[in-house]
């Protein structure tokens, strides 16, 4: 630290060095945030953990301690509890599939979009403004708009595809069991690709123009330039964007709740928990599912932070 030592006559130092006083102040300044997080994160988290050990439910459970039986227990008809629930693991599977497909597609399309936005041709500026629209619109609204556009009767997407002779029959996107998850994924890709593109764009803008110039003079083609020059240089930015999007996709709720409701084909972890908590009023059981989701996410996060600790923390040392 290049801070000057306080003069010996400084009455306020009271035997503390300037650095020590600054540390005290730092904790004073941190305290509102720490208190807030204690109240809104830690307290509910502990409450959830405790509730997961009880049989609390709206339909009569009185909050008796039942140990870990919400997680796993052997009943008359076999294993019960969240960890033995076929529906729970199906929703974990749906969440994983949703995350893989959407984040994958968003990375590829986002990269293409970022390259277009990064070009110096006219028209990339209005485009940059336009792509912020899907990102800014509330997810609930996007879900409603797309639900409406995907309707079998009166949906514009079916009409346009019929007119273009791409299909012969209108498609029932949101009722056909095999199409529900793809339809929801499509909307997520529409909504969040701009975010991905902007993060990748920020990475692209740090690449000096003369790198491309050098490649051009050496007669390297555009595809080779992309894979040999651009991609390696922008990769760290892509990776961070992917991590952000991945952790976000794993908690997806709004889109699925609005577009399909809690149905087996699309139910994700968050939808499962919410429907068991609010729909069925199984507080203890839903809390157990919450704990499992929390542990899954926490493990993932720890793995990510541990593997990329330095880069994520940047210059904070």
């Amino acid at each position, binding site marked *: 630290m290049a801070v000057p030592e306080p003069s010996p006559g400084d009455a306020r130092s009271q035997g503390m060095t300037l650095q020590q006083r600054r540390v005290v102040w730092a904790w004073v*300044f941190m305290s*509102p945030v720490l208190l807030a*997080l204690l109240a809104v994160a830690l*307290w509910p988290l502990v409450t959830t953990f405790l*509730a997961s050990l009880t049989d609390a439910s709206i339909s009569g459970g009185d909050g008796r301690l039942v140990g870990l039986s919400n997680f796993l227990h052997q009943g008359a008809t076999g294993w019960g509890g969240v960890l033995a629930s076929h529906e729970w693991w199906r929703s974990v599977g749906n969440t994983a599939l949703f995350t893989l497909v959407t984040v994958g597609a968003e990375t590829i399309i986002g990269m293409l979009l970022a390259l277009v936005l990064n070009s110096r041709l006219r028209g990339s500026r209005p485009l940059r403004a336009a792509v912020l629209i899907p990102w800014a619109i509330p997810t609930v609204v996007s879900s409603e708009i797309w639900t*409406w556009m995907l309707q079998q009767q009166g949906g514009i997407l079916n009409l346009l595809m019929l007119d273009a002779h791409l299909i012969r029959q209108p498609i029932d996107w949101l009722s056909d069991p095999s199409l529900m998850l793809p339809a929801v994924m499509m909307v997520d890709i529409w909504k969040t690709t701009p975010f991905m593109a902007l993060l990748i764009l920020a990475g692209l803008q740090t690449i000096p123009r003369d790198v491309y110039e050098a490649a051009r003079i050496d007669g390297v083609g555009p595809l080779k330039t992309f894979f040999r020059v651009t991609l390696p240089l922008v990769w760290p930015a892509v990776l*961070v964007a992917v991590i952000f999007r991945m952790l*976000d996709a794993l908690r997806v709720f709004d889109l699925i709740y609005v577009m399909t409701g809690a149905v087996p084909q699309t139910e994700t972890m968050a939808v499962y928990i919410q429907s068991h908590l609010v729909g069925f009023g199984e*507080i203890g059981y839903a809390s157990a599912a919450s704990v499992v989701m929390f542990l899954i996410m926490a493990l993932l996060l720890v793995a990510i932070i541990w593997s990329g600790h330095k880069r994520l923390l940047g210059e904070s040392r």
Partner: protein
Amino acid sequence: MKALRTAGFYLVAGLFFLWAVFPFYYAVVTSLKTGFAVMTPTLWPSAPSFANYVHIFELGFGRNVLNSVIVATLTVLVAGLVSLLAAYALSRVSFRGRSTLLVTMLGATMFPQAAVLSGLFSVIRGLGLYNTWWGLIFSYLLFTVPFTVWVLTAFMRELPQELEEAAIIDGAGPWVIVTRIFLPLLAPAMAATGLLAFIAAWNEFLFALTFTLDNTARTVPVAITVFGGSSSFMPPYGNIMAASAVVSAPLVVLVLVFQRWITSGLTMGAVKG
């Protein structure tokens, strides 16, 4: 060859533009149609009418808008104030545990809201905040505070060290340094961060759905999903699209006006962090 590439570029750019803009455009078009015209897909309303807009406000949508404005605004004010102080400590003072705190903040921004849903529900009931603005504001601090702390810390790190040293030599205390020196310099960053936090609070759905019961505190995203049709055999899309346009329009305008700030705020939060 060059002309071909330029043409290809404009084709791709045009497709992206259409892809981004069309759904919102079509929602506005639908909201201007009434009766059976709603169900006939056309790219232009043949007889534009604001009947749907009038109708949703008759259904009490104004109250929902008010709820959303108050909840989002207060959330941003509280989160912004506490985060500014924390960001100063995290970016300017080196103390033991700082990296741990930073990692905790980053981890907390990724916190899965559903994982604390039941605990938060009973905490909010216990505090008597169920179905109130305060219950929502309280729960929204969960996802706004870590984000605003993280982004403001990144912004504050960019400011030159000398500024503060000069102030310290002049005998300024930490409170004066934050409010008189950093706050003015950080105004654009605060605005960008506040805007992003506002959008997050305005758009939030899971907590709003779970912690409200009726129009006393119900915010717009939840209100939109519970809209019924004006008659039982007509799908309610005219109303839903009108409500969608009302909630989205301010955001679209904000985003277009503050485009540059938003982009810098977003990328500060991720790439630079």
